[in-house]
Every structure is written in C-alpha cells, then in structure tokens.
C-alpha cells in the first residue's frame, strides 16, 4: 500500500492491483463529530453531488457518469467513533476495458474533482433550490432508518448507551438543525470541510501513479489547518444497567443488548474482540445462534456485532415479547461461558479460521479495501491482510478470556410489539 502526504493534513493512500476490473477513488473528509456542526457538514456531500459548474443539473451530471461506462457515484456520511466522515467517490471500470482510446481513469478523476472543486454557485452562493433538495435527501435518510425496525432498535439502544457522550450524535445531524441551515451556513461549511478536515484520498486500481499526480494537482493550493491527533473516545459505563422498553405497532418485538468493552482501544485488542465476537454471536455456529435459535427456538435472527471505534458489542434479535427475560438470561449466560473460558479448542480455532477467511476475502473487493484503508488510517495502523492473519493466529484462549472479562452490559433496549402478552 502506498501512503503519501499530499499537503498539510491531506493524505493519499493507494492499493495497486491489476486483477480488478473495477477501480475506486474516494475523497474522505474526516471531521470531529459535534452537535453544532453535524447537520451542516452532513448536507455537503449530498449538495455537491446534485450538480456543479460543469454539469448544471442532476440529469446532466448523471449522464456524464453514464458516458464513463456507467461509473457509480459514491456518496456517504459515516460515523467512526468520535469522527464524522464525509465521503464522495467514484467507482468505474478499469482502463483496459474501455472500448475507446480515452483514459477513463483520468476522466473519472476529473469528474470527481470537478464535483469537489466547482460547486454550482449563483453570485457566490449555493442555490436555494439545490439546498432544499439536499435537505430533503437528508430528511429521507433520517426517516429511512425508522423503516428497518432492527436497525432502528440498535440505533435507539446506542442513543441510550451514549446519552452523555459525543458518540450519541447522529451522523446525519438533526431535523431541527437541518431545517434552519441557510446558504451562509452552507457556504461556510463548504470551506470548513476543506480547511478543518483531515482529508484521506483512497484509490484502488491499476493506475496508481496517474491518480496520485492528478490528486496532487487537485490539492496543490489547499492549506488545511493543523488537525488534532485522532483519538478514539472511551465511554464510561453506567452505574446500573439502563433498561428501556418502548412499544410500536409491529408483529415481532426487537431486543437489543448493548455491551461496552472496558478495555483500551488498540489494534491488538480489536482483533481479540473480533475473534470473541465470532465465538459469541456473529456466525451461524456461534453460542447465541446455537442456543437461542437452535436449542430454544426463540428467534430466527440472533447476532452480535463488534464496533472497534466505539468498543461496543451489540446483540440483537427478533422475538415474541413473552420471551424477553429468557432471551436476556441466555445471552448473559453465554457471555459468562466465554468469560469462564468454557469454549473448546475446536470452537476457538474455528472462530480464528473464520476471521482468517474474512481477511483473505476482503482482498478481493475494492470497496472492502477502501473501507479498511480508511479505518486503518483512523486507528493509526497500516497492516496488510497477511500480517493481520498472522496476528490472529497468535491470539490465545487466555487473551479471549481476558478481554471477555472487560465486557459489561450497559443498556437493554426492547421495542415491544406483537400480541403475545
């Protein structure tokens, strides 16, 4: 992997691999998450991708993507720990598959750069019409989270877990703040995302040098302000478990248990938690799946997710309301088994094998490499998949038991539905 500083706080990362038939180039603005700025920053990627100086409306812009062999525009707002990340990128065919003699890689770079550098302005300001559309996109994204009830329950549980912490802030900001945004706020935000971010440009494909040179010219005149060292927060545990129950008109209740891991955040500890998570609930042979679904028949879906940025494990399942206590009791029992080291060598080796499998598989997907690159940069590590696999094999049962004993239940969120009471 190539890593090069293009300018103050602007970094270029690339992974050259000729096997890929599709390439990806993303520009990621990493900003400190804050209640004051979350909404005005979140709107920017959506506003910038409606149109620009060169392509004056959404259809013209989309037609340009179509001409580039159906290149995909990638727009995303992420939250990683205490950071809000605005990503705008392009995914396109590798140059060797273009049917004309044009350099599609450079054409795609230039299209992406024109989106970033040449916004559509009228008398120096963003147009009201486009601001209104970008606000609607953001409102729709916020509302859409509600439609998937399991994700909604997980979001709610996290809100309660981090009620006193920066991490509770929504990555899309808040409706009440978005409504108030005017074109002065937005213009200010446009300049801030270039000057206050750490900018990480990531490219995966066959033309590393050409893309790097193009990126250099994009950022040659930018002077980003010094950026504080990226630090991931460590959230405090509540004095007692927060137990929340809400009702909704749905067929099946959704149960979420939010655990905080009270260990330091480091790449090594993260890998141990990833293995632990497979043992616990992230695979169809994990303890939760075998016991809560297969033996007790309480649910169809039952899984755990580990988030290395917030150092949390979220267990979620859809159940009948009547089984709430049974499901909680069994989840805690299975975690306790891991804390006591009650898992076989075979279970442990199988969990490591799955992690190895996933790490190897991630090398075959430009999107996974892009995400991994971004998260490794945030965590300040730079390890190849092969080196990571080696580290996974070095993890011992004792390591797992040790980190398991730092896991504490913080919040139980129950979205009650159905009529089984």
């Amino acid at each position, binding site marked *: 992997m190539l890593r090069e500083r293009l300018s103050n706080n602007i970094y270029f990362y690339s992974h050259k691999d000729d096997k890929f038939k599709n390439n990806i180039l993303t520009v990621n603005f990493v900003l400190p998450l804050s209640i004051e700025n979350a909404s005005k920053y979140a709107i920017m990627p959506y506003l910038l991708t409606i149109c620009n100086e060169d392509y004056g409306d959404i259809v013209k812009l989309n037609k340009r993507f179509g001409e580039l062999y159906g290149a995909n525009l990638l727009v995303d707002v992420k939250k990683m720990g205490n950071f809000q990340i605005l990503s705008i990128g392009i995914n396109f065919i590798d140059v060797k598959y273009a049917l004309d003699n044009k350099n599609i890689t450079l054409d795609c770079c230039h299209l992406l750069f024109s989106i970033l550098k040449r916004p559509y302005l009228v008398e120096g300001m963003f147009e009201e019409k486009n601001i209104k559309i970008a606000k609607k*996109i953001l409102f729709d994204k916020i509302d859409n989270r509600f439609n998937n009830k399991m994700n909604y329950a997980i979001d709610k549980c996290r809100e309660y877990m981090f009620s006193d912490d920066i991490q509770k802030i929504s990555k899309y900001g808040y409706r009440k703040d978005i409504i108030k945004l005017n074109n002065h706020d937005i213009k200010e935000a446009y300049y801030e995302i270039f000057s206050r971010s750490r900018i990480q440009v990531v490219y995966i494909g066959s033309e590393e040098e050409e893309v790097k040179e193009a990126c250099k010219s994009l950022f040659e005149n930018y002077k980003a302000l010094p950026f504080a060292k990226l630090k991931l927060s460590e959230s405090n545990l509540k004095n007692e478990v927060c137990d929340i129950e809400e009702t909704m008109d749905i067929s099946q209740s959704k149960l979420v248990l939010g655990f905080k891991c009270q260990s330091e955040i480091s790449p090594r500890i993260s890998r141990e938690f990833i293995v632990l998570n497979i043992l616990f609930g992230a695979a169809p042979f994990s303890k939760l799946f075998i016991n809560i679904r297969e033996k007790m028949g309480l649910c169809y879906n039952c899984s755990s997710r580990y988030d290395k940025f917030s150092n949390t494990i979220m267990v979620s399942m859809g159940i009948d309301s009547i089984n709430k206590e049974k499901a909680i009791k069994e989840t805690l029992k299975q975690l306790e088994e891991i804390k006591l080291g009650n898992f076989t060598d075979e279970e442990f080796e199988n969990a490591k094998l799955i992690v190895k499998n996933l790490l190897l598989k991630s090398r075959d997907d430009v999107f996974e490499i892009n995400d991994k690159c971004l998260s490794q940069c945030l965590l300040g590590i730079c390890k190849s998949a092969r080196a990571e696999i080696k580290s996974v094999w070095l993890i011992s049962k004792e390591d797992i038991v040790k980190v398991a004993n730092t896991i504490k239940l913080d919040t139980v969120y129950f979205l009650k539905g159905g009529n089984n009471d």
Partner: protein
Amino acid sequence: MSGCYEIKHSSGLKIILNLMSEHSYAYAVLGVRYGSSNNEFKKHDDDSFLSCPQGIAHFLEHKMFENEDGEDTFQKFARTGALANAYTGFDRTCYLFSCSKNFEESLKILLDYVTHPYFTNENVEKEKDIIVQEIKMCQDNPRWQGYFGVLNGLYSQIPIFNDTAGTEESIRKITKEDLYKCYDMFYKPDNMVLSISGHFTKKEVLKIVDNIFTKQDPSDIVNKTYEEPIEAVSKKKTKKMSVKIPLIHIGYKHLASNSLRDNYIKSVKHQLANELIVGSTSELFGYLYYKGVISNPIGYEVAFGPGYLMSVFGVETKHEEEVTKGLSDAIDKIKKQGISDDDFVAVKKSFYGRHIMEQDDPEIVAENYMEASLYDYNFDDLQDLVLNIDKTEIENLIKETYYDQSSCVSVINPNIETY
C-alpha cells in the same frame, strides 16, 4: 488461470465453473429448480396433482441443514472456515458457501448435506417456531410487504403472491413425510445446477462431484400450469405500517413466454426498457427530483419465472399520485415519441460497464451463471445479446407490454401521524 467451463455431469447435474485464480476466495452455489411457487406437482403418469402447504420449499431448505450424525451443517462448515447460507425464491432453492481455504472439504460438505436429507418428527416440529419468527420478521419489513402487495394485485393464479415462507398456519401443518415427498421429487441431479467461481481447480470439483453424484433416473416432474389473465387482479393495494415515508411499488404484468429461455431474454430487454423509463438519466427522474417528489431514482426489478414476467418499480415518497402519473406519462411519451438514439446508446454503454465491474465478484459471477443456466441460457452470451438489441425492439416492447390495465400500485402508508 481463468476461464469458464460448462460441464454436463454423467449424473445429470449441470456444472458451471468460472476460474478466477488471481482471487483469494471461491464461492459455490447449488441451485435446485424448486421454489415457493411449485406447490402443486405430479409425475407424468399420476392422475392428479399433489398439493403441499404453502412455504414447504423454504421449510425444506431450513431442514436440509440437519444431518443423521446429529451435527448441524453450520458446525461442519465452521471447521473449514467457510461461510454458508441458503435461500428460497419463487422458482429455486439455493445452497451456498464462500471460503478462502479448504475449498475441497467445504464443497464436499455442501454436496453431501444437500444429497442426504434427514428429517425426524422432532427436528421438523422444532423448526416451526423458528420459521414463525422469520415470517414475523418479514411482516415488519415494509419493502417485503409492499412488494407482496404488488404481487397480490397482479397475479391471481400463479402462486407467486404467497409469502415465500408461507403462513404460520400453513407451516404448522408440514410433516416429515411432506418434506421427503418434495425432496424426492425435486432434488434430482438433472434438476440442479452447481455454479462455482473464484479460486479453485476444475479437477478437484469434478473429483468430488464424481464421488457424491451417482447416475440416477431422470427427474419426472410435472408442475401444475396456470391460466393467468394478462390484466391485473386489482389496481391498488394499501396497507398501514410503522413507516415515516410511504412506500410505493408499481407493478406491470408482462406477457410471459412458455419457454424459460425466452423469458430470460425478455427480462434483459425489460431491464433496458425500465432504465430508459425511470433511470437516473431519464426525463422522469429529473422532473420528479426537482419537484421534490423523490430524492433517489425510482428502483426497479424484473421478476420472472415459468409463466410469469413482471417489472416492479419502487420508491419512498409522500407524493403517490405524482409518481404514478409521472410513470404512466413517461411510458406514454416513449410509446408516442420513441427513444432518442443518444439515450439508447448511453444505457447500453452503462450496461456494458456494470457487466464488466460485476466480474470482479465471484459471488455475483456464480449467481449470474446459475440463474441463467436455470433458465437454459448461457450467461456468456449476454453481452452480445445486449449489444445486438435494436432500439425499435425496446420501443415495441414498451408499446406492447406496459399497460395500465396490467398494472397495480401497492402503497404502504404510515400508521401514525409522523409530522
């Protein structure tokens, strides 16, 4: 080493191998031509059709993971590091895994468990509670409910309007004997396709298939056929759910061919037609976007199978009438004025690009080849098929198969006042 091979095994099993040796992993899928719509069937010499409870194909998929040695299939895969899964559609049941190491062992497990059913009264009963939870999960999924709303509005005879998993009532009736009956009928080598892509060798696959698949009598399946009118059953279906933005699905029932291959080819042409009607470069998208009706292009899917073919458009919006009228007007405009040459060339160019990009993913490659093969089509021919499609073919397709009387709108409305 790269390359694509199609092999007809002596057992009758069709095997499609896409070697992508520069990749780290392999993806294998074994597809059976048997899904939730195959609920009435018989052998050629039988007098009457056997009718099964709704959801039985999906139930069978769940139960295939049981083994006589008492060890769950997922546990077996855990030892190889492979990730396994299965799914059931209207016309197929598919069993799959992906792995980066231990490919041979993983393939043996896949082929072994799908060819060795083991059902007991106890394990069948145990599964019912789990599937009931799956059904309830789908009941809370607005997209699923909206989609099935359209199917119910479009079809009255071909049983694709039933939920794939059945109902709580129907699955409670399923017995071990029912499962064996269905298994024995449909799980025959010549009714299956094995498609593998990624990092593996042809030799290791053939050795394992030779050991597990023995020559059997050809399958003898007569699926019941249905007389399905071309008109929709109902113009509108509505339902209230816990959503914040209404969810609209608009379905157009197209004239389906009796030939599976013809239906596959038609479905590709409908994909192009739908992209021209509602895609991100369409006039309709620009109009609705700037009117504040939608914030993303209207999505679409072409669903097809034996005797059915439909386009289903879907979008979240608070402006149902603008979307339905806009879609109907856009179709009428193309019927009257045709498609511009530039738009047609651009859509084909985008199709080419997407087709190339998908080839990086062994999962998509294996699934695409399997699906085409289930429809007697060679996926290698797709690129040429699209390049040779004439603009007038698509114009005629839109003129002849997108009618208001063959369409239905399904709306999921919020059950609460949100703002």
